[in-house]
């Protein structure tokens, strides 16, 4: 019987080998994917047992803590706290028992300490008995610019509005504000049912406080799109220079027979303005003519280079694409080239348009992450500014910049009063206003847009502001941009 016993032993050995191989597969090979499966309550719960990393705004204005984990008295858990929650909510998002949003979600692996680059550090803490800790995330946000943006939006009479500021030379996002907003501290409760109740109330709020208007909501760009139209016109050579004369009748009869009017049906330098004059007065008929000359497909391809129609952009939060539809029909192209029809833009895209012009035609990839610091203070990740695209040549950028300066510096310019010498003295802001009809034929509900950068001679900040139903871009949006610029540049 011993021979059979020997074979039975082999069978037993085989069973144990299979078990051992399988547990190796489960716990070593598959461990990561099992552990990180959505719905694994363990990972989910565990995050409140350890100190999650802080989020810090490290841009101009000094380091400011945006989010931190504080121990809850009498328990072994930590709770998230946002010292200035509402102002930074569009950036930080929130971290709750039922998931997270914003930076909290995008850099979960760093904040929760699960990033592979933190593995060695975690092992050392484990061996030395130190409690596990998440890494600190430093953002490019400038507290000065962000505070100014939030306050300006908040004090604007309750309009839904958003503002974004970018450093044109690097793409670093300096401010990202949205209003109405929410206080993320409301959502940090560790009490599940309580969270659901508050979350439901916020979701049901008609003012949509959870919506990040700066990157996830689009508005008609209106005349601010003339920055893109001009860039396409100069680049394609359809218009020689800002001094070139264009035809700007009032009204303009479109090929399909419809009439296109200037704002307030005003004539534009006798119907024969230079491009720069049409730009500073924002004559619709002039740019409708220019757009028709450039053509729908070319116009769209230049918009694409500025970052429009890009559904893959992340900062790291996903950005809703700003859209310029592909149009071949001349009449519709005319509408598109003045930012009407189906054009839709995010405040971030408005800032990117200005940033590309400010940075000599090179658009830097917008980003929020400055660096990530492990608990042992070593830097484990940082962003190197990178080029997203080159929409126009430095020469064309200079020509568009010249026109944008005229908008605020020429006494006839649309933003002379609100962003020119009367408002900001010697600081030169280069900008473009937009006042978009948004479907309802009611002037009071126009969306106000302003895209700009400053100082014009040495651009350090590019800003995009959109105020829904704000009225004239120059009146409603430009002052907000001015406040952000002044706060950031700090007495120029």
């Amino acid at each position, binding site marked *: *019987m*011993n*021979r*059979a*016993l*020997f*074979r*039975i*032993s082999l*069978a*037993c*050995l085989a*069973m*144990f080998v*299979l*078990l*051992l191989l*399988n*547990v*190796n597969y*489960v*716990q*070593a090979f*598959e*461990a*990561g*994917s*099992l*552990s990180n*499966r959505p*719905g*694994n*309550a*363990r*990972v989910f*719960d*565990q995050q409140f*047992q350890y100190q999650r990393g802080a989020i810090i705004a490290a841009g101009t204005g000094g380091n400011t803590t945006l989010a931190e984990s504080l121990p809850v008295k009498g*328990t*072994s858990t930590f709770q998230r706290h946002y010292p200035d929650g509402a102002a930074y909510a569009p950036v930080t998002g929130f971290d709750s028992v039922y998931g997270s949003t914003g930076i909290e979600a995008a850099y979960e692996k760093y904040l929760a300490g699960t990033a592979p680059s933190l593995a060695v550090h975690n092992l050392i803490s*484990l061996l030395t008995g130190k409690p596990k800790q998440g890494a600190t995330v430093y953002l490019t946000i400038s507290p000065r610019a962000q505070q100014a943006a939030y306050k300006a939006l908040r004090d604007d009479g309750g309009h839904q509005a958003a503002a974004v500021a970018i450093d044109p030379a690097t793409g670093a996002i300096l401010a990202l504000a949205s209003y109405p907003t929410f206080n993320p501290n409301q959502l940090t409760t560790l009490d599940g049912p309580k969270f659901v109740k508050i979350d439901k109330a916020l979701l049901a709020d008609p003012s949509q406080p959870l919506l990040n208007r700066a990157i996830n909501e689009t508005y008609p760009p209106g005349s601010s799109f003339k920055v893109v139209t001009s860039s396409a016109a100069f680049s394609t050579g359809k218009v020689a220079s800002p001094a070139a004369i264009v035809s700007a009748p009032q009204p303009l009869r479109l090929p399909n027979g419809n009439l296109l009017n200037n704002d307030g049906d005003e004539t534009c330098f006798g119907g024969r303005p230079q491009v720069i004059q049409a730009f500073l007065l924002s004559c619709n008929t002039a740019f409708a003519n220019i757009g028709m000359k450039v053509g729908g497909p070319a116009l769209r391809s230049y918009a694409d280079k500025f970052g429009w129609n890009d559904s893959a952009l992340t900062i790291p939060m996903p950005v809703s694409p700003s859209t310029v539809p592909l149009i071949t029909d001349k009449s519709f192209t005319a509408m598109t080239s003045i930012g009407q029809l189906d054009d839709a833009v995010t405040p971030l895209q408005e800032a990117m348009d200005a940033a590309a012009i400010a940075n000599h035609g090179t658009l830097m990839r917008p980003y929020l992450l400055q660096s990530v610091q492990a608990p042992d203070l070593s830097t484990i990740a940082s962003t190197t500014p990178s080029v997203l695209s080159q929409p126009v040549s430095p020469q064309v950028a200079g020509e568009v910049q010249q026109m944008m300066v005229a908008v605020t510096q020429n006494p006839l310019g649309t933003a002379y009063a609100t962003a020119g010498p009367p408002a900001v003295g010697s600081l030169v802001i280069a900008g473009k206003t937009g006042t978009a009809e948004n479907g309802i034929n009611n002037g009071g509900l126009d969306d106000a847009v302003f895209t700009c950068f400053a100082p014009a001679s040495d651009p350090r900040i590019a800003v995009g502001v959109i105020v829904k139903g704000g009225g004239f871009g120059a009146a409603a949006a430009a002052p907000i941009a001015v406040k952000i610029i002044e706060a950031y540049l700090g007495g120029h």
Partner: protein
Amino acid sequence: MLAFAVAVVLFAYANVGFGLNGKVPSGLVGYGLAFAAIVGCAHLAVRQLAPWADPLLLPLAALLNGLGIVMIYRLQQSGRSGNPGSQIITLSSSATAEQVLYSALGVAAFVAVLAFIREVRVLQRYTYTLGAAGLVLLAIPALLPSSMSEVPGTGAKIQIAVGGFSVQPDQFAELALAVFFAGYLVTKRDVLALAGRRFLGIDLPRARDLGPVLIAWGVSLLVLVFETDIGTSALFFGLFVAMLYIATQRTSWLLIGIALFLFGAFAASQMFGHVGERFTIWLHPWAGDNPTHNAYQLVQGLEGMGFGGVFGTGLGHGQPFWTPLVQSDFIMTAFGEELGLTGLMAMLLIFGLIVQRGLRAAVAVRDPFAKLLGGGLAFAVALQVFIIVGGVTQLIPLTGITTPFLSQGGSSLIATWALVGLLMRISDAARRPAPQPIQDEGMTQVVRAG
């Protein structure tokens, strides 16, 4: 060796306290002394009753038993004294004390086996008695109303519950039937080994000798049908086939057995919804709403093991309480989560060592009955570990049986200790030095009378 096992257990116990509450658990002295006393008694009994027995078996068994107690203590703390995990409601606050008591009873059974069964062959006299007893034990839960026989929440009718006290007789039936198989096969093995026709290079047995195999198969199928307990059914049939093979050395029996098992399993999966469902869960645990419904337990166990990873979270730092019934069938996933791959492999190796020491004793012992019984029992341990650990780690379809030594509950623990007692007795017989022959070695050998 034994002291080392006790030390490991005490250390693990203290570790749970640190992990959960940052301090030494209050019961350390009490539970520690009780556990040390229990295994100390076992040690003294072995010294007295089976001095030649394998010195490794008892420490290995004690280590597993102790770790099981530690894990049950750890799980019992879930949701108590400010610890997370209120999901566990099936563990009473006295679960640890009860498990220590069961361990004492188990060791008592172990000592009783050593004390009353001085020679394994004695059992051979009770072959048919024990066979009948085994069948009755198996059948009782099937005949009882499900209010008395169903394990709450599982649908398996495998226990006899009276008042607040329940026994799972299949654990004891397994032992009784192993003895019966050994006794029956030792006497019939020559007949069963007779070759019938030769077909495809395999000696097929005679048709009329198929009887016992078919009966064993039928019984295990009946267990499956009436008690909805696939694991036990597979365990019995596997045990029988293995012992049949050891007795006859005929590969044909093995192949017939495996073929019958596969056919039975396939037929059952087609005929009975709950069996087919086990297959679906096994193959597609992540599909559709399986993770939150049918496969919830399996998925939770796997996620726990994944969460533990290679080194584990450390005792008290994981969240094994998410897995339903983690204290019984799924206790290995709790070990996997908190002790990691390393701990789990170590525990599997301990099981493997127990099996290996049992088989070794079976190989070394001369008496064919003891040989067959030892081989069968050791294989039964291996098969049981394979079925349950394989089940919870998605290697094979999940069938609910207890994990030897670890799962919460008395029946399994007591029966396993008795099983180890039998293995110790066999190993004692195998390793006992032969008495000095009185005369010159000749054709006769001195055999001690039983």
